């Protein structure tokens, strides 16, 4: 049975109202489970699953969020239309980051149009792979012979450059310095779930967020002004085009503030997600030396003929791909996906009335023992031919599923393959802290590695084969 025949998507008398979902125990007055969400979100979601089963209600400061667990419930969630389950109103903590009137105020139809983002088309990927390989080499040029990196800082900086070069424009990227990634990071840290109470509470975390956003607007204003002063506006990168669009009265259609918002929104989805996945892939491979060894051998063999990273990153690199997928399964960058219920949502005799939120948790789903053998174990072989545990489209959901499945998933996989193809052939890494000290910081809705998260590196010695041949 598919979940689609369990769900009545049309409102009306035919869809009789079912039972209310069970409510999770332990809520505080007024705040409900908000503090638990801010401290131990994944434990909170497990508690719903263990206590309530497939469907259970949490309370975030008066916002009722019904968590759906298991493939039937998750399929119903992922198959629902935008008209029934709306993404827009579900993420109040994002509005002040993007700016009012940006992205989430668009209608479902406008968003469908925006999904056809030309820069993510398959035809564009070869060019992107070249850019990403080049950006990785630029970061590697700064590493020298040996030393230590903070793995969050390293990948957060690299992915600010790659995302801006691929999604916004290469010239724009050349204007960016390390300052941008620090400001961007501040912005990401501003996604505290206290936004469910009010995203504008006078708290340090929100003041910092707003300061970071203003700072970003200033930085971008500087970029635009320098370009215009140099007469480079005619080169027609995305921001030149946005700046020259006029409304009916001939006035500029978009302000710098709005364009900044669009750029933030374009980069946001691909930034902390890719950065975190790169970091976790590297950490997990170092915790599992067998995987690191087979990935290293795979890359050496693949590039032995001197072929180009931009070419190989588009092709299959099975061991590396499985290593990445397994990092994504255990450490999904988004731990909860939410929608606002626009028309009553029915599931197996339960009804979630319009106005409440429904949610699915990739962090829970990806570790459900019914679908993943030995789910707590980092085991890339679960993606081998014949096993392919990621084929369970509604269970393996680091990228979500259905009509809102991450539009950048293919781009992200290509990007990670390009990054590691360069990095692992150039350097060897080792953990600089106890293996179990690397963990995520869940205090904000945008999950980031907790710092410190340091690794040691050393430049790899060139292959020794040729020496013997010369004699």
């Amino acid at each position, binding site marked *: 049975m598919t979940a689609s025949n369990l769900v009545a998507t049309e409102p009306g008398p035919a869809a009789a109202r079912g039972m209310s979902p069970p409510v999770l125990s332990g809520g505080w007055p007024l705040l409900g489970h908000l503090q638990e969400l801010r401290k131990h979100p994944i434990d909170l979601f497990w508690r719903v699953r263990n206590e309530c089963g497939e469907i259970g209600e949490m309370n975030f400061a008066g916002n009722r969020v019904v968590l759906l667990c298991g493939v039937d419930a998750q399929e119903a969630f992922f198959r629902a239309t935008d008209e029934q389950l709306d993404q827009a109103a579900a993420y109040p903590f994002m509005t002040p980051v993007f700016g009012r009137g940006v992205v989430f105020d668009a209608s479902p139809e406008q968003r469908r149009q925006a999904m056809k983002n030309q820069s993510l088309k*398959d035809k564009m990927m070869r060019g992107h792979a070249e850019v990403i390989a080049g950006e990785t080499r630029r970061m590697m040029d700064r590493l020298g012979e040996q030393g230590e990196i903070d793995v969050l800082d390293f990948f957060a900086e690299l992915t600010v450059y790659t995302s801006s070069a691929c999604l916004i424009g290469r010239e724009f990227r050349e204007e960016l310095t390390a300052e941008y990634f620090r400001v961007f990071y501040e912005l990401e840290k501003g996604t505290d779930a206290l936004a469910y109470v009010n995203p504008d509470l006078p708290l340090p975390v929100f003041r910092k967020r707003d300061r970071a956003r203003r700072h970003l607007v200033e930085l971008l204003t500087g970029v635009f002004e320098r370009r215009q002063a140099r007469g480079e506006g005619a080169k027609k990168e995305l921001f030149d085009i946005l700046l020259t669009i006029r409304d009916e009265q001939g006035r500029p259609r978009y302000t710098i503030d709005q364009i900044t918002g669009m750029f933030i929104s374009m980069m946001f989805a691909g930034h902390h997600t890719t950065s975190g996945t790169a970091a976790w892939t590297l950490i997990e491979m170092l915790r599992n030396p067998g995987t690191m060894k087979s990935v290293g051998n795979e890359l050496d063999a693949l590039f032995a003929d001197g072929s180009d990273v931009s070419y190989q990153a588009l092709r299959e690199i099975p061991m590396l791909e499985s290593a990445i997928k397994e990092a994504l399964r255990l450490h999904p960058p988004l731990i909860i996906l939410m929608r606002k219920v626009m028309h009553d949502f029915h599931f197996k005799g339960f009804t979630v009335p319009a106005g409440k939120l429904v949610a699915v948790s990739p962090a829970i789903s990806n570790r459900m023992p019914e679908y993943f053998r030995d789910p707590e174990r980092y085991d890339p072989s679960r993606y081998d031919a014949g096993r392919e545990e990621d084929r369970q489209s509604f269970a393996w959901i680091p990228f979500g599923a*259905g009509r809102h499945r991450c539009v950048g998933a293919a781009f992200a996989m290509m990007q990670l393959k390009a990054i590691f193809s360069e990095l692992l052939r150039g350097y060897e890494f080792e953990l600089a802290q106890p293996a179990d000290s690397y963990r995520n910081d869940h205090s904000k809705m945008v999950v980031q590695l907790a710092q410190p998260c340091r690794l040691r590196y050393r430049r790899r010695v060139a292959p020794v084969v040729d020496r013997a041949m010369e004699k």
Partner: protein
Amino acid sequence: MRIKVDFDFCQGHGVCCEEAPEVFALNDDGELEVLQEQPDEALRPKVEKAAKFCPTRAITLAN
């Protein structure tokens, strides 16, 4: 061999069009069109690749 596309899932990435241009195409609106629902057996390897590399897993093959 019969091709099924779950249009709930398709986002128009166009990977299938690169793998099997005889069978899949994007129209001017960026929407996917299946040119042949029951293509010749000779196209099977290409169609299988299209299904395998579809970023949204929207393509399935019967028989």
